[in-house]
Each structure stands twice: as structure tokens, then as C-alpha cells.
């Protein structure tokens, strides 16, 4: 049979190449739709700014509630951006092609999650410094707030990504997403906001930050396979 010459068995892509491909692709697409990405960040800043307007503008009170508000706004902003992670790829068939590609699906999806974290959560970490200033936090408080977001948002993104994949193709998926993600995010919220408070109380933030980091590491290990499973289920 003359077939073998025309079809050289191309080696399946390595996990790293697949991750890189998916991440670069999504970063490029994010660059094309900068408005959508910026929307999430503007939302974060706006939600944070609402509280001082609605409450008594008292410096000590604001300082006390600052970490909680920053974390809740970060959570809501992440939630707002989550449907974007898979819905477009689901609608135009890209996700189907990823499922059928000669490359590890979990690596492709991890690349997407990484790109999503880089375009939404990483800017939030930087912007949290701004909202820290708004609430009259001191330098140390701002640094710990940013660190807690940096360590906690990967866990949040993985939780959200798996939920978003499970909600694919369901009607009212984005509302369902809120119901799915918010309860799961409660521990992250508690340790995230708690880190700044505990530092302010002189107890040190190490315990809280270590727990957030441990959660994020665990999520990055379990997340890829779980996410691949969720996407497969959504396509059956």
C-alpha cells in the first residue's frame, strides 16, 4: 500500500508544547479583544470604590474592611470573566478540535487557564495596590493583600475553570456558574482576607499565605485532569 509514504506519523505534541500553544493563542485572542479584558478590571475598581461612597468615610473603618472588600471584588471580577474562558471556543467548535487533537487535552486546557489567569487575575494583583490606597491601608497591608491575591487567585481560577466547563452547554450557564463557584470560593475568601487582618493584629500572615499557596499548588496538580474530564463530559 502506497499510503505509508504520504502519511508520516507525526509525533503527538508534548504536554509543554501543547500548553504553550494554547496559552499563546489565548493571549493573542485577548489582545484582539482588549475591551472585554479591561471591562473586568474596571469592574474590580468600581466595585471597590462603591463601598467608601456607601459607608461612613471613616479612616479606621475603611482600613478594617479593606481586605474583605478587595477580596470580594476580586472574586466577583473573576466570576464575571469566567464564562469567557470556554464559551466562545465551545460555540465556534474550537473546543471540539482541541478534544480531537493529537495533543494531551489537559495540557491544552491548562494553557487556556494560564492565559486566563495572566489576563484577568494578574492585573487584579497589581490593581489591588490601588484599592489598598483607596482604603488607606499602610504599605505592609497593601503588600500582604497583593501577596494573598497572587497566591489565592490560581486556586480561584482552577475552581472557576472546572465549574465553567461543567456548566458548558447548559441554559443560563453563567448564573449557574455563580451558584457553583461562590460556595467553593468561601475558604479562599476567608484565608485571603484573613491574611491582612491577622498581619494587622500582629499575628503575622504566614499561616494564611501558606495555606493559600498550598491550595493553589494542589489545584494546579489536580486541576488539569479534572478540567479535561469536565470538558469531555460536556461534549458527550
Amino acid at each position, binding site marked *: 500500500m502506497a499510503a505509508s509514504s504520504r502519511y508520516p506519523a507525526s509525533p503527538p505534541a508534548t504536554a509543554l508544547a501543547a500548553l504553550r500553544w494554547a496559552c499563546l493563542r489565548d493571549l493573542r485572542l485577548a489582545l484582539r479583544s482588549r475591551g472585554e479584558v479591561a471591562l473586568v478590571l474596571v469592574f474590580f475598581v468600581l466595585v471597590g470604590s462603591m463601598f467608601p461612597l456607601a459607608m461612613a468615610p471613616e479612616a479606621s473603618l475603611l482600613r478594617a474592611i479593606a481586605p474583605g472588600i478587595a477580596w470580594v471584588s476580586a472574586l466577583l471580577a473573576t466570576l464575571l470573566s469566567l464564562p469567557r474562558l470556554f464559551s466562545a471556543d465551545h460555540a465556534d467548535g474550537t473546543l471540539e478540535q482541541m478534544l*480531537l487533537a*493529537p495533543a494531551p487535552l489537559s495540557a491544552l486546557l491548562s494553557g487556556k487557564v494560564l492565559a486566563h489567569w495572566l489576563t484577568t487575575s494578574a492585573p487584579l494583583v497589581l490593581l489591588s495596590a490601588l484599592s489598598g490606597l483607596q482604603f488607606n491601608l499602610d504599605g505592609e497591608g497593601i503588600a500582604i493583600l497583593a501577596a494573598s491575591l497572587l497566591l489565592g487567585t490560581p486556586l480561584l481560577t482552577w475552581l472557576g475553570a472546572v465549574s465553567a466547563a461543567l456548566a458548558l452547554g447548559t441554559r443560563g450557564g453563567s448564573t449557574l456558574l455563580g451558584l457553583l463557584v461562590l460556595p467553593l470560593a468561601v475558604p479562599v475568601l476567608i484565608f485571603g482576607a484573613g491574611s491582612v487582618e491577622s498581619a494587622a493584629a500582629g499575628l503575622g500572615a504566614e499561616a494564611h499565605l501558606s495555606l493559600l499557596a498550598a491550595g493553589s499548588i494542589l489545584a494546579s496538580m489536580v486541576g488539569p485532569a479534572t478540567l479535561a474530564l469536565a470538558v469531555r463530559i460536556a461534549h458527550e
Partner: protein
Amino acid sequence: MTEAVARPDPQWAFESAEASGLAVDGLACSAGYRLLFKSLSFQLPPGQWLRLTGPNGSGKSTLMRAIAGLGRPAEGRVMWDGVARQSGSTEWHSVMLYQGHAAGWKDALSTRDNLVLQRALDSGMPAEHARSEVDALLERCGLLSRANLSFQRLSAGQRHRLSLARLAGAQRKLWLLDEPTTALDSHGQALFGRLLSEHLTQGGSAVIATHQPIDCDRPPIELDLGARAGTMPAAAG
């Protein structure tokens, strides 16, 4: 390869498991609670193509997806080269190319970038060194002058031509194509016929769901899902 023979009914006894190419053995698929077809068996040796017809809703797309491994059939199995294919495995994915109604192109990217990305995904990554090859594919499909245009500005026919360009470049033995020629003009249809003939000559095979005549120099094996619905023989295979 022996000459292609059009068989009146693909429902023949399931032969030995040693056969090369695609074989479907006793497949049954349902949509919700409705059984679309059952005991569907056929063999598709290299160098032949199967034309899948049937009224809307008779399960053409479901069958395609079941073969590709996107949907799980209610019963039966899909074999490749005599072995049950592992759905979801990279080995199977480098044998088969599935193109459904949504082809996975991005509106925001240019025609060329779309194809570069897809080809990288199809053929084990590195995206950079594929440029010249991609331009040759675009030229063959009459899209080179549109290479820098964003995909959303292409006409429906041109969009399908981009899928043809992907098909021409991807070196897969089995094509699973769902309505590949809708919206194509007569030149596009002729181009698809040539691509298919080439693919078959080189030992490839294809399952194509279509209602339009396809100008291929080999006659297809016909499979009409509509004619089979509800009139299943009690036991087959």
C-alpha cells in the same frame, strides 16, 4: 488497492477483524430517548469513501461524532486496522480528522493566522516554520488574496474553503466530514472533488455526510440512514 466497488447495502456480514481501515460493528446511537439507528455495521477499506445520506435528524452527525469519539454510542464498537479504536487517544487523533458544522475558526484572527494555528495543533505544534506551507495551501484553495483579512469578513463559501485548506494540509488517513460542500461555489466543489480523489488515491478513506453530488473519480459506498430507520433486521453482524 483493488478497484472501488459501490455496494448496494453496507450491511454485510462483519468480516474478519484483520481488515485494515475503518470498521463499524453493531453500532447503535440514540438522541435522548429516541433510537436513531442500531446494528449498524460497515467496513471502509483504504482508498474508498462512504457517502452518508438520510433525512434531517436521521443521525448522520451523531454517527460521525460517535465514530470520531465525541459522543458515546449506546452499543457497538468502532475499529481501526482491526483493533477497537481508543476514543480520546492521541494515536486515534493522529489517524482521523473530524470536521463538523462549527469548524473552530476564530473571527478575530486573520485567515492566515487561523490556518497557522490550526495546522500547528493538527501536526504536533511548532507554529513558526509552517508559514510558507500555509501560503501554498491558501493559494491552492483560492484564499491567498484574503490571507490578511480577518476571518469574520470572509463569505460563507470562503470560510468553507479555509476548512478545505486545512484538510489539504492535514495528513490524516481518515476524514470524517459533515456537509463539507455546503455554500461552496462550483469551483469550490470541484476543488473538494480533487482533494478527495487525491486523498483516496494515496490510500486514505473518508466518511462524508452530504446531500450534494461530489465529483470524485471513485464511486462511493452508499449508506442511507433514512432507509434503515425503523426497518432494522432483528439481528445483524
